[in-house]
């Protein structure tokens, strides 16, 4: 127990938490935009997976930032496919999302086989590049707290910083711009927006594209920083956990950040625990993020129910 506490309060664990939270946060922000516009994006999982592979394959031939942009575009493209089938052809968003997930699980393996020349499991014979970590060792010159600043702030992925920035950008967009107001109202009451002369469909379409792009960034972080390379089904349910984080974060960017950090922390625990407690079976440790998501979802729904009944009567 002491070892666990020592690990949890170490700077290395903090780095791990930020690393595991980043893809969750990016995907959660993506889910948040779609959810606010009234379309639950269950395809986060599949979009992340496709972007993971896109990032790996592109980074073999191009610099890392091109690979990140390619992952983002792949995500945005899948978002637009969803928008097309949901908004133009009136398909149910959950079914479209699952078609994308099913497509992603098979198409990534198919494409991986072609790209590696027969390997169905991983991209070990492709030499892909990582996203660089931001080196802030100059902070060590700050008197007194310099060492602490370097240990906690230096060494995070560039995308982690971007994700943190995006929380603020998204908050500003949603609560300080008129487009943000429109986006929030299209999910609540689309006909009011249409009466004001704004196209609800266009707004929903763009938010699905943005949602896909953010999930794409999440995929890039996953396959270019957390693990450099692609393995079959490497997202392992993170897209669905992000969906839970959207609900848990009370559909607010800051809430999304907190929820992603919470789930990221348990994900990080499942990374460090096998080393500390080798008597706990690996399978049970791998279960932790999923069980935590269910428990958090149930507690949150219970709280929501309590508050709504107090206000009703």
């Amino acid at each position, binding site marked *: 127990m002491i070892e666990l506490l020592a690990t949890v309060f170490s700077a290395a664990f903090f780095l791990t938490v930020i690393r595991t939270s980043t893809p969750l946060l990016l995907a959660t922000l993506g889910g948040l935009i779609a959810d606010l516009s009234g379309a*639950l994006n269950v395809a986060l999982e599949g979009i992340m997976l496709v972007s993971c592979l896109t990032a790996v394959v592109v980074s073999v031939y191009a610099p890392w930032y091109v690979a990140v942009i390619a992952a983002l575009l792949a995500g945005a493209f899948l978002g637009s496919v969803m928008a097309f089938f949901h908004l133009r*052809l009136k398909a149910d968003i959950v*079914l479209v999302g699952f078609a994308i997930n099913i497509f992603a699980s*098979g198409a990534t393996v198919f494409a991986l086989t072609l790209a590696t020349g027969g390997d169905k499991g991983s991209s070990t014979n492709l030499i892909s590049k990582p996203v660089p970590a931001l080196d802030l060792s100059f902070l060590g010159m700050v008197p007194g707290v310099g060492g602490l600043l370097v240990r906690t702030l230096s060494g995070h992925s560039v995308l982690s910083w971007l994700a943190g920035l995006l929380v603020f950008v998204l908050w500003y967009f949603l609560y300080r711009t008129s487009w943000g107001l429109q986006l929030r109202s299209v999910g609540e009451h689309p006909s009011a927006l249409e009466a004001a002369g704004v196209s609800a469909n266009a707004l929903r379409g763009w938010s699905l594209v943005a949602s896909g792009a953010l999930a794409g960034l999440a995929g890039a972080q996953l396959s270019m920083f957390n693990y450099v390379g692609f393995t079959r089904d490497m997202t392992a349910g993170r897209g669905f956990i992000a969906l839970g984080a959207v609900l848990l974060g009370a559909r607010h960017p800051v809430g999304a950040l907190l929820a992603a950090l919470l789930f990221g922390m348990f994900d990080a625990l499942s990374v460090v625990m096998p080393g500390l407690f080798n008597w706990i079976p690996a399978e049970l440790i791998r279960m932790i993020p999923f069980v935590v998501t269910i428990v958090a979802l149930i507690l949150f*729904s219970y709280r929501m129910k309590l508050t709504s009944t107090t206000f009703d009567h």
Partner: protein
Amino acid sequence: MSEAATTRRWAVLRRETGRALGAAIIALAVAFLIILFSSKTPLQAFATLTTAPITKVRTVGLWIDDVAKLTVAGLAYSLVFQARQFALGVQGQVYVGALAASYIALSPLGQTWCAIPLGIVCAMAGGALWGFLPGIAKARLGANEIVSSLMLNYVAIELANYLIRVDLTTPNSRLLSTAPFPSTAVFPALIPNTRIDIGLIFALTSVVAVWFALYRTSWGLKLRLVGHNSRFAQYAGIKEAFIIVSAMAASGALGGLLGAMFVEGRSFGKLAVSFEGNLAFEGLLIAIVARNRPLAVPVAALFYGYLRQGAQLMSIRTDVPSEIIVIVTAVIILLVASSYSVKPRAMLAAITRSSRPARTHVEAVK
């Protein structure tokens, strides 16, 4: 039934069949294009995909065995979708059901005549529990059933992996599966020397049972009302919470049955790690193509099971990976779930129409 109603029914049936076949043809065309660009022997690969399953008795057996399983998976989704609950927990229920059936089969009871009936009952109870959990969370607290059921899938898979490794294998064995079940706990074959076993009978019985429950009982009527118009169902005094929980638990029982059909069926006869091979999620396609109608589920399963078997044979005999079938699945789901039309002109109009939501709103009011 009146004459007009019968005619209308036939018209709907014709339209839906046309749409499903159209979607299948488009999806196969997509598959053909992908094979053309990725394979060295595209024609041979495509021929294997479309004709191989019926060439031998053995492969026909594999096909029909898949059809029985796909049917039960499709029914499990149809049941919850008819209540408009997007519970996607069939995969988890299959694992829990398989675990329950395996514990019975590997216990002393597994060597007696009651191995199969008891195994199936326990598997269905386990699956029903796994369906009940997200159901009660949704009905009592409003917890989103999509997220909770998907999380439970992962929990069930890890649970199965753990129990297989620690509890169910013989010590020190490196195999990721249990010992073969005693012959009393394996389904007897219906047709000798094929994989076709009494699982097929269970599948057909399930079709009739689900149809009867949905269309000939008051529970089914209430369930469909909740799915069709939840507000109306509330005004009519239907206990929505009970319907949601019971629908999800009943669907879970079907998932559990599927688990038992997997491990006790002749194709396995044991419990192995990740045995279901993504079949549980492919049941989603069956339910969507069958429009959640229990009687249409086996027909959809028959067609899809054929393609699925063809794809597996193709990946063995040619250089095209079997994952191509998944791309076909996704295209079919997208087309059937959307309002695409087999008439090209109507389709073009749907794609190119300017989006004017105000008009659709008026249409909705009409």
